[in-house]
């Protein structure tokens, strides 16, 4: 125990980072565990985590990486478990969370340390895009280190099915999209495949962005934003129209994506984690050929905008091994760490200085767009809305799927925004 305290004191004084931690831990003797809490257990994501672990343990011979991953749809179970740990004041040394508003609750509860010192020390504000730093800052402070960037607004499609239906190119506007859905429907294929209810919220955020445009979309999450506007009403009407072309809901996004890959469905709108699923060999993938069996484009009406989300790591207050956690955050923030993790996870690094040669095919496109596009934050994946807000939105969408009542949906969304925007 004394060794840990000594380390903590050492880390608190700032100084030489990884190197200092190493030497002081060596004098303390014995290996210290660093408990890393995440929801990455699947192929790809778990491999990426292992790659970062390797780098972490090479750089920090005195620490062992302790994997505390709990699986379950976008971290549902992990988040619940985390909640109980935080409330009992027994946090893991570091935990995964979507960067952005998802962390608001933890920040308000005083569970997280401000990481500005780390950003200053590692000069992270220079290597992360300014818009990103801006969108994850809370009153000038930053509470997490983004390790990757995913894109939400991707329209995946089956080129063969489109050709068969007489659709020449991927639709770029909502109107074109609806027209194309109609053409596919006429051919008897599923125009748009969807999964469980959260994938419909995912669709909603894309339709909102596609209808409203980037600035109006981003404004929705500011305090006092008007969700009762006719523009939002129009977006929700679009949402209803598009949803009317959806096939039977599948169990989750994978079976929905598979319908596209297998040529049963034409389109699906899903985040770019779908790329790995389409492309990777079996053991977590379908082994399909890109551009041939499946292809992609920005979701209709969202070209030029990167609807982003990011997995990030935090520093909980009262972590048993604070220094070890900081050492982990340094790996997560490093070029080497991000370039090891992301090609396996199927995402792009948050840093601007990544080794571009590692990112091919879809990921090369993503990297290019990331450097030039405007940014908008995802709803379903925790960037723009807090957890209670998201829960309210998901509830509204779930009820909408059953009732298809646009007015009720808009009212519920407005109430949710009023209660939660800050």
């Amino acid at each position, binding site marked *: 125990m004394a060794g840990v305290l000594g380390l903590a004191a050492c880390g608190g004084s700032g100084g030489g980072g990884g190197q200092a931690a190493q030497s002081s831990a060596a004098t303390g003797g014995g290996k210290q565990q660093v408990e890393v809490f995440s929801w990455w257990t699947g192929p790809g994501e778990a491999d990426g985590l292992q790659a970062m672990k390797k780098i972490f343990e090479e750089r920090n011979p005195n620490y062992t990486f302790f994997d505390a991953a709990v699986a379950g749809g976008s971290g549902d179970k992990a*988040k619940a478990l985390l909640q109980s740990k935080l409330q009992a004041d027994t946090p893991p040394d570091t935990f995964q969370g979507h960067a952005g508003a998802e962390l608001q*609750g933890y920040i308000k509860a005083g569970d997280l340390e401000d990481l500005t010192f780390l950003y200053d020390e590692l000069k992270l504000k220079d290597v992360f895009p300014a818009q990103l730093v801006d969108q994850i800052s809370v009153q000038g402070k930053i509470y997490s280190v983004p390790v990757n960037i995913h894109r939400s607004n991707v329209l995946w499609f089956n080129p063969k099915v489109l050709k068969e239906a007489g659709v020449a190119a991927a639709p770029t506007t909502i109107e074109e999209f609806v027209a194309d859905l109609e053409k596919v429907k006429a051919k008897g294929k599923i125009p748009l495949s969807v999964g469980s209810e959260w994938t419909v919220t995912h669709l909603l955020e894309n339709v909102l962005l596609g209808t409203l445009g980037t600035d109006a979309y981003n404004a929705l999450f500011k305090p006092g934003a008007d969700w009762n506007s006719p523009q939002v009403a129009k977006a929700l009407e679009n949402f209803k129209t598009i949803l009317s072309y959806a*096939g*039977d809901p*599948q*169990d989750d996004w994978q079976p929905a994506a598979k319908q596209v890959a297998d040529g049963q469905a034409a389109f699906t709108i899903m985040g770019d984690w779908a790329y790995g699923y389409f492309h990777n060999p079996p053991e977590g993938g379908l082994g399909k050929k890109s551009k041939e069996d499946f292809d992609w484009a920005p979701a209709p009406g969202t070209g030029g905008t990167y609807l982003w989300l990011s997995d990030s790591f935090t520093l909980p207050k009262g972590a048993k091994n604070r220094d070890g956690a900081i050492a982990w955050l340094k790996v997560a923030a490093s070029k080497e760490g991000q370039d090891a993790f992301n090609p396996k996870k199927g995402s792009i690094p948050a840093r601007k200085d990544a080794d571009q040669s590692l990112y091919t095919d879809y990921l090369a496109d993503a990297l290019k767009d990331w450097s030039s596009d405007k940014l908008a934050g995802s709803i379903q994946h925790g960037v723009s809305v807090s957890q*209670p807000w998201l*829960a309210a939105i998901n509830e509204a969408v*779930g009820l909408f799927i059953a009732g298809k009542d646009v007015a009720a949906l808009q009212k519920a969304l407005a109430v949710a925004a009023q209660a939660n925007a800050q």
Partner: protein
Amino acid sequence: MRRARSWLPGLLLVSPSIVAIGVFVYGMLGWNFRLAMTDQHDEVSEGEFVGLKNFVDLWDVPRWHVSVDHAVMFTVVFVLGALLLGWFLAFLMEKGIRGEGTFRAVYLFPMAVSFVATGIVWRWLMNSGTGERAVGLNRLFDVIGLPQWQWFRDPDWGMAAMAIPAIWQMSGYVMALFLAGFRGVPEELREAARVDGCTEWGVYRHVVLPLLRPVTLSALIILGHISLKVFDLIVAVSGKQIVTDVPAVFMWVAVFDAHDPAKGATIASYIVLSVAVFVIPYLVWSVRKERRS
């Protein structure tokens, strides 16, 4: 009443359990009801006493009505289904049949398997694709000429489908209970009824069924409380979707997703109360009945 010296050792022997139940059951229930009567709608605030406000407000939430309706439908289908199927299986085996041990083992074994394990299979089996996209049971039904269903994704009858895995799991237990009940009816009673000129069906109606009433009642209680608390199954098969929402899932969402402790506690209170409403009379009744006999 015997003297204290004779009953005190008994009380001592039970006292660890009394303490444990006191803390873990009643302590937690007290914590829960207290929380439900505050306005602590996030984890940070202290929460002021607001009486029964949360209990009233919940009825203004559309989702609450959906989840209650679902729970009622699930309960009716599950309890009746498991009861009837369990009874029927026991009825078929009552008089003994070749391979009875094997039959019993097969019917009982679903109880041994957790829904963490079988959730995926039920998702496959109850896939809502139809026609050429049918997989799972719909494919099977297609082949043998039965109609195809939306299963648990049907907005109106979905919860009835959700009861199928639950019936699969519990009807074996009900079968065992009834079989034990059938076997517990003394042969002399049946014989006496036959001598009195009863037909086999008459024997069954007038002798066996009345004696099965207590078994039926305890099966009803066990099934009923499982049904009102049902959570694992639904989360394993469908996740936390509104189309299969029930109060237990809603509670989870309120506590862990919406971070609204008071709302979660209110829903938990309603679950406990709804269970209590039909369990307490049963408990009182059975204890009294026993004392009389």
